[in-house]
């Protein structure tokens, strides 16, 4: 069995990126992501990683420089959070459109204002439609395991798209956990050298970033949409290969004690683990509750999600960011639209939890499950529940 060591998740994530033999890093520090790029700068400074480390003056420049380095064929990594991700916004669309397989770790954090450095999902939900593959890790081990997965998917010839690895800021990023490291040989077996399908090369001139006039822009976007949808197959293959390498099984949609469940919770990120404890407590009392959650967020694993639900009659969907002025918040909106017309019509109760770092405890999940069980009995509709807000 591989060695486990007690280490901060951010450091483990950075080590994993370095062991993926990244060749280029551009970064601007922002809490709570800072430790990742700080640690990578140590790898480079100590001469242990042969990579270009480009410190820049903003996140807009960080992602722009990453695009440049990826465009000349380097395996490129960057990381950010919150305002930093928001500042990257316009370039994120370009990265996907140019099909540059950059991997970015995003320590999810609330967006200002008011200024908040604490965790929720408002940063990534605002970047839902950028055209990147997006996946969620729930703990430090998953962060470590999923970095090579991201490169494997992003650089696959059938995909050639950038990919975001989401994990909760502070709750995961700053947590010291026992993490099982892979050997370098496992990385090298899993992740072949990057073979760019497009590359700026003076011996073979080409132009990236051309104008798309109305006669051609639509076709470019259609191709981009389809390749992102089709990348799901590649993610599934890469997850299977990952299991062979490290023994841990990940899936695009994962269930926890949901097989015979009367009600399940749908949520993303590290709170899944808190919710699991609530499920265990209630199961011990004989209550049939469980969890079904999409690990892959973009492309959304529609078929797998519908299949995983089985005939469960009541769902709770937990959002961790607002869609201001919308009928539903982002995750609930996705889940409802996926189910409409699917032939399944479970009752859906929407919850808002963990906004701007507001703590949510096991007991609160237990209360939410009890509410879902009540809904199953009485069939009543609930308005959106804003858990824990003072009113």
């Amino acid at each position: 069995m591989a060695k486990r060591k007690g280490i901060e998740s951010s450091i483990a994530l950075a080590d994993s990126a370095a062991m993926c033999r990244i060749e280029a890093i551009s970064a601007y520090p922002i809490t709570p992501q800072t430790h990742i790029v700080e640690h990578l700068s140590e790898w480079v400074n100590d001469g242990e990683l042969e990579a270009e480390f480009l410190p820049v003056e903003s996140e807009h420049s960080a992602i722009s420089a990453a695009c440049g380095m990826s465009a000349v064929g380097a395996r490129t990594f960057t990381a950010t959070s919150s305002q930093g991700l928001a500042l990257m916004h316009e370039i994120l669309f370009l990265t996907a459109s140019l099909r540059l397989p950059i991997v970015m770790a995003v320590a999810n954090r609330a967006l200002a204002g008011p200024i908040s450095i604490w965790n929720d999902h408002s940063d990534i939900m605002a970047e839902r439609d950028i055209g990147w593959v997006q996946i969620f890790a729930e703990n430090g081990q998953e962060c470590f395991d999923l970095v090579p997965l991201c490169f494997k998917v992003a650089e696959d010839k059938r995909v050639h798209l950038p990919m975001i690895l989401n994990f909760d800021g502070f709750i995961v990023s700053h947590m010291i956990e026992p993490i099982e490291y892979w050997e370098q040989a496992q990385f090298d077996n899993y992740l072949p050298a990057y073979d760019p399908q497009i590359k700026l090369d003076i011996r073979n001139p080409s132009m990236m970033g051309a104008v798309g006039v109305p006669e051609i822009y639509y076709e470019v976007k259609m191709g981009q949409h389809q390749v992102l949808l089709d990348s799901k197959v590649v993610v599934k293959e890469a997850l299977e290969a990952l299991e062979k390498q490290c023994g841990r099984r990940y899936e695009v949609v994962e269930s926890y004690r949901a097989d015979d469940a009367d009600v399940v919770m749908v949520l993303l990120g590290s709170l899944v683990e808190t919710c699991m404890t609530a499920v265990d407590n209630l199961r011990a009392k004989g209550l049939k509750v469980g969890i079904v959650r999409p690990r892959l967020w973009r492309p959304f694993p529609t078929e797998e999600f519908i299949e995983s639900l089985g005939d469960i009659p009541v769902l709770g969907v937990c959002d961790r960011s607002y869609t201001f002025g919308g009928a539903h918040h982002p995750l609930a909106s996705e889940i409802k639209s996926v189910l409409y017309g699917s032939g399944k019509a479970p009752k859906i109760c929407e919850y808002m939890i963990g906004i701007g770092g507001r703590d949510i405890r096991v007991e609160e999940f237990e209360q939410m499950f009890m509410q879902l069980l009540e809904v199953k009995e009485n069939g009543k509709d609930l308005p959106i529940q804003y858990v824990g807000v003072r009113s």
Partner: protein
Amino acid sequence: MEKHPFELTWKEIPLGFVQTDYMSCLKNHTGSWRSERPIWDESHCIKCGVCYIFCPEACIEQDEKGYFHANLDYCKGCGVCAQECWTGCISLKPEE
């Protein structure tokens, strides 16, 4: 025969919309945008080349006698040459 880019289906778009057809911009005859064309009055032209230097399309060429003309395949009729000409020998004539 190779398809014109505007005939490509979404499945045929090159990866990343990268343009590998070197000098492909020459196929785009921007002269079709023109509503006025520049005319040189050679009796006033001093062959200084200011029009050649300022042309944003770089489509002005010098003939064997040293006079300048616009390549009408690419000249958009912007009039920068006429504005910059030292002797005022370039005028713009509306296209019919």
